[in-house]
């Protein structure tokens, strides 16, 4: 037994004093794990919501002709109306893009939702500056449905997320996408505002107040490059989010229209006591008309009050004071919710299921990746460690050993034990260094492997036996040393690919064929605070025993002194 340990100790010392071997055994897996964990673990903070993207090149083409409330709604918003600085404001700050609370308003020249989309996605563009309609978070009453401090979960503003180019030609935008210049082009159709906003549903030729028809939102097209699926999906999600907000506004008004009309009964020209004025008639004329209708209908009375209040009782433009006085912060705040991205009382919180999920993202990734890399590189040690016997033979030290009163079995057992011990030490060092790197990156001491320590040790021992056994099997199967040099890495690469060592995961049925899967699963289980790794230990131990059994039987036949 002492001889066996002497041979094993010799291998251990020889291996860990060879700087070249340490490069592949320790440095490479540590570097690789750190790179992967940094890439997917949220960097130094270690708690980012996910892989980040920035400066995604996109193009936007706004063909939206907008709607003109002055034309569509008579003098409710007469020419010259400027709502800047009132309930809603027009100047959007880019920083407010995702996490801010934004809102919109119309100017005298029309209401163009396409312009708003441009001003959100390309706030610094000349087109946004010249647009008739845009967004702002300034002067906006607070939406009470946005919880304080809430955000969308992103840590990037739209300004950082996209590098937006505003184009006027859809063909050029499509060509840019096809040529790889843009990840996606957002193409806003000409009737976008007209159909998303209910104003457009009024305006029958005879001036009658028609029933509000179901809205038919002309879809915005996101034309994406197939080669940039991730960037394209981000562009799609953001566009859907913004357009969804606009539709919310339309939805509120349409639903209100539905309900009001239902409560008032049929509404057509004949039902009215007198024909309504022209849509372009002065506000005063509309107010008078509504007031007369309002004698028998409270809704009309309310509308008369609103028109009168907003226009100051005459035909002058709507003023800040009129808006504030007649709308007020409470209603203004409620209306602001229609444009607030975080508005809504229902939220979803991802709760941790185990201790590992409570850890920072970097640590979680490190447990998965680090254990996979550690076992993957241990495989190389296992295979090439056995080859050291061939080196000993070449240098005649093996023959000298056998010339001493040492049996062939003792020598072989010593070498194989040495291989197991070398792998065990490699795993232990890697686990230690990986937790050290995690502590360094997260700037606090953290032991990422959970425990208990005896199970960790047992697991590493089972992996070492399995890995070293595989090494013996590969070497035993090969006829020559050169074949091991070829087939060893091949076997390891496949086990690594199946076991998730390369950053991608195969279906479980295939993954379970790799000992790396069983090992990493056990490491992850221990990191979660659970201790049920007995199946993993059994699988690894049985595999190890089988590999060793067959491998040693073959190897003894091959080892010609």
């Amino acid at each position, binding site marked *: 037994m002492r001889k066996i340990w002497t041979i094993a100790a010799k291998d251990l010392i020889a291996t860990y004093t060879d700087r*070249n071997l340490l490069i592949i055994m320790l440095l490479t897996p540590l570097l690789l794990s750190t790179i992967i964990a940094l890439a997917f673990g949220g960097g130094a903070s270690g708690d980012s919501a996910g892989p980040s993207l920035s400066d995604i090149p996109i193009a936007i083409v706004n063909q939206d002709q907008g709607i003109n409330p002055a034309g569509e709604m008579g003098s409710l918003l007469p020419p010259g109306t400027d709502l800047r600085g009132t309930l809603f404001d027009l100047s959007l700050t880019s920083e407010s893009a995702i996490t801010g609370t934004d809102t919109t308003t119309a100017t005298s020249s029309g209401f163009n939702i396409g312009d708003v989309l441009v001003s959100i996605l390309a706030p610094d563009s000349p087109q946004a500056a010249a647009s008739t309609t845009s967004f702002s978070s300034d002067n906006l009453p607070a939406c009470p449905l946005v919880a304080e401090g809430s955000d969308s979960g992103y840590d990037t503003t739209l300004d950082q997320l996209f590098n937006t180019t505003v184009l006027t030609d859809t063909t050029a935008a499509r060509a840019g996408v096809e040529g790889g210049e843009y990840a996606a082009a957002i193409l806003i159709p000409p009737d976008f505002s007209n159909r998303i906003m209910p104003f457009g549903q009024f305006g029958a030729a005879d001036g009658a107040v028609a029933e509000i028809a179901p809205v038919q*939102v002309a879809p915005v097209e996101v034309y994406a490059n197939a080669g940039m699926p991730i960037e394209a999906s981000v562009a799609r999600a953001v566009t859907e989010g913004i357009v969804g907000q606009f539709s919310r506004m339309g*939805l509120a008004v349409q639903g209100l229209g539905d*309900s009001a009309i239902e409560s008032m009964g049929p509404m057509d020209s004949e039902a009215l006591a007198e024909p309504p004025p022209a849509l372009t008639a002065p506000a005063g004329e509309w107010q008078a008309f509504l007031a007369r209708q309002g004698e028998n209908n409270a809704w009309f009375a309310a509308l*008369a009050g609103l028109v009168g209040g907003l226009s100051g009782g005459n035909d002058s433009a709507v003023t800040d004071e009129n808006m504030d006085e007649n709308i007020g912060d409470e209603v203004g705040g409620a209306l602001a919710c229609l444009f607030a991205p975080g508005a809504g009382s*229902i939220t*979803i919180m991802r709760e941790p299921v185990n201790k590992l999920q409570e850890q920072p993202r970097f640590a979680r990734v490190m447990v998965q990746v680090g254990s996979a890399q550690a076992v993957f590189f241990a495989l190389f040690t296992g295979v090439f460690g056995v080859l050291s016997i061939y080196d000993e033979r070449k240098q005649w030290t093996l023959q000298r050993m056998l010339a001493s009163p040492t049996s062939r079995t003792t020598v072989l057992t010593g070498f194989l034990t040495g291989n197991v011990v070398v792998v065990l030490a490699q795993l232990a060092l890697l686990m230690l260094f990986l937790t050290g790197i995690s502590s360094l990156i997260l700037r606090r001491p953290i032991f990422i492997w959970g425990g208990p320590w005896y199970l960790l040790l047992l697991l590493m021992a089972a992996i070492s036996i399995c890995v070293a056994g595989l090494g013996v099997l590969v070497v035993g199967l090969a006829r020559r040393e050169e074949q091991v040099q070829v087939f060893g890495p091949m076997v390891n690469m496949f086990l690594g690919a199946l076991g998730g060592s390369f950053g991608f995961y195969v*279906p479980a049925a295939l993954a379970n064929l790799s000992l790396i899967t069983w090992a990493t699963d056990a490491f992850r289980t221990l990191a979660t605070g659970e201790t049920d790794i007995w199946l993993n230990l059994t699988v690894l131990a049985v595999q190890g025993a089988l590999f060793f059994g067959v491998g040693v039987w073959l190897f003894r036949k091959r080892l010609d002194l």
Partner: protein
Amino acid sequence: MRTIFTIARNDLFIFFKQPGNWVSVVVIPLLLTLGLGWAFGVGEDSGPEKINADLVIPVETAATQRFVTRLHAVNGSLRLCPMDNDAENACNLEDGQAIPTVDQALLRVQNGRTAALIVLPPDFATEREQAIDNSSPIAYYSLEDPTLPSPILQSAQTVVQELNGTDVAEYAGMALVDLFDELAEQEGQTLFADAAARENFAATYRTALVRRMENQPELVNFTATAPMSEDTTLQGFEQAVPGMGAMFVMFTVLAGMAVLRRERSDWTLQRTAVAPVSRAQILAGKAGAYFVLGMVQFLVIFTVGAAVGIPLGRNAPALLAVMAAFVLCITGLTFALAPHMRTIGQAANLERLISLTLAPLGGAWWPLAIVPPFMRTIGHISPVAWAMDAFQKIIWFNGGLQDILLELGVLLGAAAVLFGIGVAAFRIDA
């Protein structure tokens, strides 16, 4: 020139005479590329037809019922347990029983009997205006890897977005109605005779909103230059082929460090110097051999890519130019490092270290677009990143030579510098 060709041909002959090298250059890269590309695709399609997700509803109301209905509508592959359990106990419920408590359901998540657990809060149906300050969030539990997108969580978030949209529209709309009521009162009228009438109106309004929300047409039409989501396997290959190509080129070409070390140890390099050939010819011949090997390696993997149907762009010369520039760069790196290798083992281990770190760093294993900006910047230390950028422009965007001039410039510039270092350090008799 003939001498250079002879040296290169000789090295190539020796290389391909060894069957093991065929395995390294053809078999392993081919199988790994196929496996990788296939794995990406199959990962999407091979799951079960239905995914189990437990749903715990402490207080059943119309609102919770709507949540369930919409969740089913949004994701037809979800089996919400226990309500969707069937005669075959697809929900894996013990004795077909209902899930009584959150703790028991949580245990099912931990044991893998269900993919996720969604717990609706008791105040889920509370009036939103009252609930905003106190409402509890919906709790979501799953063993899913938090780094990967979750189809269940995404579906639940879509439903929540819908519900919030309706809530907000109702809230804003009713605020307007109350304003109207005040205005009507000022005109001596009233919209609602009493509170019950207002409640009736609110109910009608909510019904109208829900109807409109559920019948809302698609807001955004998503189209792509080529099918993006239908063929995920192809997507996998579009990343795997250039990525694995670049990685295996590094393995193959950087292995030259060990070969040069061995030739020096075996005195064959020194013997070559005895022949009437210049140092430059020897170097050029050796570099030529590894350049050809690198190109062969790329062609093997890209042939696999073409065979599985990935579009290789319309510009073959540009594609070849990138391959050539990258191989030259790696060959330069090989010759810059080779003179400093003391042992074959050191060279072999350095080859693996460099290949296995520069490959993921440069985006060979995953697109650099999904890593943080600082990792993207660091990644461009690796020549792989420049090659991948160029491949992306050609293969994915049908770019041409004019689109990849920067990448070619960087790779060729690096190659020139590395070759310069290598030539200066190269000693035949060292």
